[in-house]
């Protein structure tokens, strides 16, 4: 790997630019009142990292408890609270905003050749809503937590538990509006802020996947909001909408909740897929194979995503015909997902593949997401679902998609864009090590859970029969490795802020407009608005640009 593209002449002479978005204004207030999408992205990055580690700490408590078959570390109802808060924090406060609010916020305007998102104040408002929601969630965790699971399932959440459902519900409600505003901002920006010549089919696939995810945020999240309002009303004044004794139907809540929460899965994964498209193309030095197919597969996932929600309810008493239809529709979602995986594989084929850290994470994503996606087909099949649902199989499935998929994509994106965001390189060797450690730790943690699930170990219990212990010990050991894998990037990325090598404008020789600016960028992104005259991922265009620069110099 001596001739990786990391060492290019451009870097040897690179200097940090004198003015950039980081030092244009100083002081805490200039950050807290900023309208700059790049600064808001950094604010988001810091806050979601904070919530990730809270969620991670809760996850370690879960794994420690499950080290032994008895419930010995904590009382069973404490365990219920721990896994509920783990789910709520990880989903609503880490996974949903992870890539869109950080990398998306930072780079969508730059990729489109715009100076900012269309609505900078709404963007800032979205961060404040997120922080308010996060504070409320942490508050409700401290005063006693909630033990309904992240799904707030009725009638458990409305009639049978007496924990802090109302405050947590309101926290998620507010976080939902933060997500709506982010999605709305992206859609408006993508429609109205493209630079001259930036047509829809010249946009990077990262933007396409964010567009699809934004549609889901804008259309799905309000339904979750109203469902949570109804839960809060049911608890406070007993309105009976979900109460069978008053004629209400608990299943209605399931429908409303999953109408958001299934698309939410795609809100979480689609932006990650966008990152992978960028990374795979850049480190294979090839245009993404089947650009149009990949772009439309994002939209197809968003559309199909709205019509599969009832596959979460196969065992909850919906009609057999509904099961049949939703099972079939669920299978359909596998098609656009597979289109993406195949097209990335074909992009690698005959490409000049190099193995920098973002690429290692991207490979991790492809493998783990494929396993996660295929086990999703098992679960979408009504017959096997009845056997596997509510077991560790389902836990392993969604962790493969969310952690193995989305978290890998997030880390891939953070490493890939770190030079542009901070102007400095991360240390390559140790980060490659971290990527490998994460991959190994992940498989150790979650693969045993597939086996546990097929053996019939139910989820959400603090104790289990002793014969399951060996695999659980494996899983807990893997979680410790995984923990190291997640701590490492925090350490060396922080280190690199001061000591990292100067990155230069385009350390990866990538083609996107965002890479043709200085690193870190100016507050207004571009000195003049670019005029786009080439397709996305056009490496020949990049070569010609460089020749021109050499000639003019």
């Amino acid at each position: 790997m001596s001739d990786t593209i990391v060492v290019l002449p451009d870097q040897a002479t690179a200097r940090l630019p004198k003015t950039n978005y980081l030092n244009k204004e100083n002081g805490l207030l200039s950050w807290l009142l900023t309208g700059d999408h790049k600064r808001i992205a950094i604010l988001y990055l810091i806050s979601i990292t904070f919530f990730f580690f809270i969620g991670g700490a809760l996850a370690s408590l879960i794994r420690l408890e499950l080290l032994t078959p008895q419930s010995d570390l904590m009382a069973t109802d404490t365990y219920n609270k721990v896994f509920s808060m783990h789910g709520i924090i990880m989903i609503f406060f880490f996974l949903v905003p992870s890539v869109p609010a950080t990398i998306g916020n930072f780079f969508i305007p730059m990729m489109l050749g715009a100076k900012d998102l269309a609505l900078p104040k709404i963007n800032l408002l979205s961060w404040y809503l997120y922080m308010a929601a996060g504070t409320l969630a942490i508050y409700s965790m401290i005063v006693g937590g909630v033990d309904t699971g992240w799904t707030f399932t009725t009638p458990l959440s409305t009639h049978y538990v007496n924990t802090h459902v109302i405050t947590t519900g309101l926290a998620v409600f507010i976080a939902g509006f933060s997500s709506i505003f982010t999605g709305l901002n992206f859609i408006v920006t993508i429609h109205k802020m493209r630079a001259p010549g930036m047509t829809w089919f010249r946009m990077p696939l990262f933007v396409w996947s964010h567009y699809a995810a934004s549609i889901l945020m804008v259309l799905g999240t309000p339904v979750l909001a109203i469902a949570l309002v109804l839960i809060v009303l049911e608890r406070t004044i007993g309105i009976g909408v979900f109460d069978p004794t008053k004629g209400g139907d608990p299943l209605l809540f399931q429908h409303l909740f999953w109408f958001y929460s299934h698309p939410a899965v795609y809100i979480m994964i689609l932006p990650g897929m966008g990152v992978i498209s960028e990374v795979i193309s850049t480190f294979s030095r090839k245009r993404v194979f089947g650009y149009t197919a990949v772009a439309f597969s994002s939209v197809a996932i968003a559309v199909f995503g709205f019509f599969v929600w009832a596959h979460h309810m196969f065992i909850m008493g919906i009609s057999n015909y509904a099961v049949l239809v939703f099972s079939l529709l669920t299978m359909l979602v596998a098609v656009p997902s597979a289109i993406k995986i195949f097209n990335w594989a074909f992009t690698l084929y005959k490409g000049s593949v190099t193995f920098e850290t973002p690429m290692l994470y991207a490979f991790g994503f492809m493998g783990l997401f494929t396993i996660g996606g295929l086990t999703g087909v098992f679960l979408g099949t009504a017959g096997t679902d009845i056997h596997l649902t509510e077991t560790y199989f389902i836990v392993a499935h969604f962790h493969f998609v969310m952690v193995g998929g989305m978290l890998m994509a997030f880390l891939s994106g953070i490493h890939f864009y770190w030079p542009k965001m901070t102007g400095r390189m991360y240390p390559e060797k140790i980060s490659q090590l971290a990527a490998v450690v994460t991959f190994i730790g992940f498989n150790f943690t979650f693969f045993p859970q597939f086996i546990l699930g097929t053996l019939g170990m139910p989820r959400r219990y603090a104790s289990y029969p002793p014969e399951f212990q060996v695999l659980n010990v494996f899983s807990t050991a893997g979680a410790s490795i995984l923990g190291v894998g997640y701590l490492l990037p925090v350490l060396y990325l922080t280190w690199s802020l001061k000591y990292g090598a100067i990155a230069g404008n385009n350390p990866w020789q990538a083609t996107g407009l965002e890479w043709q600016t200085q690193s870190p960028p100016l507050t207004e992104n571009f000195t003049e608005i670019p005029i786009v005259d080439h397709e996305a991922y056009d490496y020949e265009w990049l070569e010609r640009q460089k020749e021109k620069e050499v000639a003019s110099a």
Partner: protein
Amino acid sequence: MPENTAIAGATEVEGHHEHPPYQRHHFETMGQQNDATNFAMWLFLLTEIMFFGGLFTAYLIYRNWYYPAFVQGSHQLSIFWGTLNTAVLITSSFTMAMGVWCAEMRKKSALVLCLVLTFVLGLVFLGIKSIEYHEKWEKHHVPGLRYNLDSFLNPASDHEVYQEYHDKPLPLDMARHTELYFFLYFAMTGMHALHMIIGIGILTFMIIQAQRGAYTTGHVTFVENFGLYWHFVDIIWIFLFPLLYLISRHAN
């Protein structure tokens, strides 16, 4: 579209200072800014539709299941107040639309007048709504807080309604489901009223701004977008009124 922005981009390089003061720095042209904010407003209204959509779904399902309870529940609502309120709201939409036109035509005092009229009509709507809510409170038809089934178990005890509809007594099981009807009534009209209150709050701000001449300088996006919001809230009512007050009212 790209050609336009390309030309605009070129002029911008020549003279940055020539922008009108209300143009945000990150937009190339006023046209782009107006397009973007209008589009954002439409998208926001789309999320609002989805938000109300959850309640409409609940209404649809329970109406199907507990049809007799929903019919008798609707007999408790006053057609007179409902129709009057609809008229008030439609008039307020008209004054709002006139307000947008006045802003476009740069007629400052007419704009202020229109906004004040919209404001007053909004308050009238809420006033009438509160008369209706008060009636429910007195008849113990507020779900969860004071709910009484007498009007449905023994319709003759409710003279006014009985004279008009001659409802037959509902069996206890069905009568209890009228509480769901009233919950949906309060949730849907309450959510609608909440939107009205937010709208009236923004109107107050706009009236002050309009008096200072903020919207009559050619920059009308804010008025326009608020108009969209106001009409949207109006349309929600246009659906609520028949669903809650009118349909199957005489189905017995």
